[in-house]
């Protein structure tokens, strides 16, 4: 796999994102698969942030820990991120009179790194343009370094700033031309060579996981979205809100997470598809509502975007630490579904399924995502809009059927699969109580022993029928999804966003032909382990890759089938697995 990467660092608000976004979109349009990764701190201005683009002609969904080109907007990057550059790489910076400490100077020489100062302040003065256009100048310089077409860049800039008028566009063009000229004068700077582009990426989307999930939500027919802002779930709220005039969706920013969860539940009871999204702390507040929906057998969809905890933890970083929370949260015993999204593809594909399962089984569904997915930028083929199904289970809307329905059908404990008929307030039919106290078949409170047993058993039967209807985990090798189970020397198991790094590692040149499989759980609870048991017993080694301290998926697997996983690759510092880092941790197992 041919891959190169460029990284921009700077203070938040300095323009790091705009350089990243323009280059990312531009490279995608030139025929590259680009993966964008942002690091930033929980503040608005001044904190140190970065935007990294990993670029390939093949599918790429992870970042390397060191880049070919690193552009530093200020001297903090020159201190903190100096060693983020690869051997033989290039550092660009605009800090006047910067002198590298002796130790750094030596490091640069030893690693054959070329550092170039671009006198931005003087150039801006000379060009007589606003300071902010320094960003476009630097973008253009990087663009030239990557040997990309100037016209393509100009077209992109024209498109992005069209609403700002011709004058602004011309100033941008002036900066682009000046940067290209300045680059040409740097005779000792080698071009960074990219692989040959593949036209299949040109019409792809360059999209965050949050926007991907948002489109999945809209596609699924969700019509009410209620949320309270919390990183990293807020980008989804922002996306749904931003597009509301197009989609017509009802959006409500609630006063707290409990409100958000309750409003979603009320909308669901009436028969709309509704959801809420939050992160760990917010989800803690929602859990009583999770439990409530379990008893009234109301479909409910909660998106939980993970970040490292406990407490406020690392608000703008990533983790997979809330799997056990999702599985075990909320009081009482009841069936639920936990789904783990992994990238922009299943952020879209699995949202309709979240709603389908919620409605088919009348249960709470928790959709796990994380900061890495929420804010990662994926190059994504346009979505297939013909595959999603609308499955609403035993929802009765037909007038003739509504006429014959009995109040006691609502929570009829005799149903074999545990799923009883559901119909909607406002429809002409026998009425019932959506009863949050233990109740009989029509929702009348009933505290008898017989009834308690009957209703508990009814609800818990749904856990089995739900499990029966879920697919086994998905198996991958370096070529992609494989349906046939085979013998592997190494079986990697995981879930969520770590999939991206694992699959990129499997594609690396010296692992491509090795016997390595990756088993990925999209549906995490109830957990299916048949395929795992079969594959793991024939594999020479099994390794768990997770972004948490305890190896939570491993714990669930052991709980379900008793099998321990000997090797664990775990990470819990808020950073995602970098492909080279993961590679070096997998290598000793081969």
């Amino acid at each position, binding site marked *: 796999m041919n891959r190169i990467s460029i990284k921009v660092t700077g203070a938040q608000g300095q323009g790091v994102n705009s350089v990243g976004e323009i280059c990312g979109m531009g490279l995608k349009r030139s025929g590259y698969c680009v993966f964008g990764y942002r690091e930033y701190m929980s503040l608005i201005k001044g904190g140190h942030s970065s935007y990294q683009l990993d670029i390939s002609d093949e599918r790429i969904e992870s970042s390397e820990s060191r880049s070919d080109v690193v552009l530093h907007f200020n001297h903090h990057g020159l201190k903190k991120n100096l060693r983020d550059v690869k051997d033989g790489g290039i550092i660009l910076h605009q800090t006047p009179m910067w002198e590298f400490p002796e130790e750094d100077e030596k490091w640069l020489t030893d690693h054959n790194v070329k550092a170039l100062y671009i006198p931005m302040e003087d150039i801006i003065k000379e060009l007589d343009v606003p300071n902010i256009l320094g960003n476009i100048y630097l973008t253009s310089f990087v663009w030239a370094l990557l040997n990309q077409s100037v016209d393509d860049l100009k077209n992109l800039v024209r498109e992005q700033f069209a609403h700002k008028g011709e004058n602004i566009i011309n100033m941008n063009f002036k900066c682009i031309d000046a940067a290209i000229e300045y680059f040409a004068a740097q005779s000792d700077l080698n071009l960074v060579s990219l692989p040959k582009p593949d036209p299949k990426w040109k*019409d792809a*989307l360059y*999209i965050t996981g949050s*926007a991907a999930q948002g489109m999945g939500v*809209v*596609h699924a*027919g969700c*019509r*009410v979205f*209620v949320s309270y802002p919390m990183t990293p779930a807020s980008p989804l709220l922002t996306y749904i809100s931003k*597009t*509301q*005039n197009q989609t*017509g*969706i*009802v*959006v*409500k920013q609630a*006063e*707290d997470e*409990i*409100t958000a969860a*309750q*409003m*979603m*539940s*009320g*909308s*669901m*009871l*009436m*028969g*709309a*598809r*509704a959801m809420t999204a939050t992160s760990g702390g917010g989800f803690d507040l929602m859990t009583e*509502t999770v439990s*409530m929906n379990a008893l*009234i057998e109301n479909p409910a969809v909660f998106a939980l975007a993970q970040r490292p905890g406990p407490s406020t933890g690392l608000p703008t970083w990533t983790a997979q630490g809330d799997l056990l929370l999702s599985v075990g949260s909320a009081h009482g015993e009841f069936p639920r579904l936990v789904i783990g999204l992994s990238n922009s593809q299943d952020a879209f594909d699995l949202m309709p399924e979240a709603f389908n399962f919620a409605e088919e089984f009348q249960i709470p569904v928790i959709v796990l995502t994380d900061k890495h997915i929420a804010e990662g930028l994926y190059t*994504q083929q*346009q*979505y297939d*809009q013909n595959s999603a*199904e*609308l499955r*609403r289970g035993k929802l009765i809307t037909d007038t003739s059927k509504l006429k014959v329905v009995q109040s006691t059908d609502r929570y009829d404990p005799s149903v074999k699969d545990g799923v009883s008929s559901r119909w*909607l*307030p*406002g*429809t*002409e*039919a026998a*009425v*019932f*109580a959506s*009863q*949050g106290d233990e*109740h009989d078949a029509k*929702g*009348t*409170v009933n505290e008898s022993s017989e009834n308690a047993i009957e209703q508990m058993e009814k609800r818990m039967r749904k856990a089995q029928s739900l499990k029966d209807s879920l697919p086994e985990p998905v198996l991958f090798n370096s070529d992609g999804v494989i349906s046939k189970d085979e013998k592997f020397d190494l079986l990697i198991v995981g879930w969520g966003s770590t999939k991206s790094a694992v699959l990129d590692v499997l594609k690396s040149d010296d692992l491509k032909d090795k016997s390595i499989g990756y088993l990925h759980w999209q549906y995490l609870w109830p957990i299916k382990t048949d395929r795992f048991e079969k594959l793991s017993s024939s594999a020479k080694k099994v390794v768990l890759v997770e972004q948490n301290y305890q190896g939570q998926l491993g714990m669930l697997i052991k709980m379900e089938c008793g099998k321990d996983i000997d090797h664990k690759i775990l990470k819990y510092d808020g950073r995602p697995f970098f492909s080279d880092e993961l590679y070096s941790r997998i290598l000793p197992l081969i």
Partner: protein
Amino acid sequence: MKIPLNQDGVSMQDYSSENLCTWCSGCGDYGIWSAAKQVLVELGIKPWQVLLCYDVGCHGNMSDKINAYTFHGLHGRVIPFAAGAKIANPNVPVIAFGGDGASFSEGVGHLVHAVRSNYPITFVLHNNANYGLTTGQASALTWQEQAMNSSPNGMPERTLPSMDFIFSLQPTFVARGFSGNIPQMKEIFMQAIKHRGFAFVDILQSCPTYNKFASHKYLLDRCYDVKDDNHNVNDFEAARALAVADTSERIATGVLYQNEEVPNLYENLLPRQGRKTTAVEEVEIKKIDELMKEFI
């Protein structure tokens, strides 16, 4: 006053549940329950056309004593649930019922934002000034010096001035009733249900078991209807003055304030303007071609 028992094909019988009431003898919930059924009949609303949402507390035991689509959820959370139901299907009248414990302690934030959001729902406060179902603890609305199960010396906290608080939020509908006056409650409920936005209806409710300070008799002796004093319900300041006035001699009841000028939350949702369908009717797999364009 004549109460029609049968209206537009709906009768009191339709709302009758076979389940027996479980409230204490003399509980104010009986009166609120009766008035609620009466107003629905009088408005010609059939049991399947309405959603009645109940908080947790003594009043919540009404959820299966009235034959309609009902919901009985979590303590303190009835308002957001009811609001969520309403925005999904604005065609269905939604009435939320909650006690003073749930509404002025656990869920007080919801009440604040319900007034602010002006959700098009009715909220009936079962105000018996204590936590009944948990056996008589003090609520934020209990009189401070009253000895209660959890505060035998009286509350160390001050009583929350509930009406002053509500009026400070710029409400669009405020009424006060008394659980012993069913015809008046029915009138209040009727106006509340017809109100454009969030209708806050405070029902002073007798609790013969735990509230010995504001008994049925106490309330009966003091409550008067502001209609009899020619109160102008559109006069915010006058309404507020009546609502916060000393209640030791006289208690103002009836519709105290109404403002129909303020749009409700749903009316303020730009993407919903001009739409004939509800969110409930719009559930289908939606095309996203337009949305994808932004990212190509």
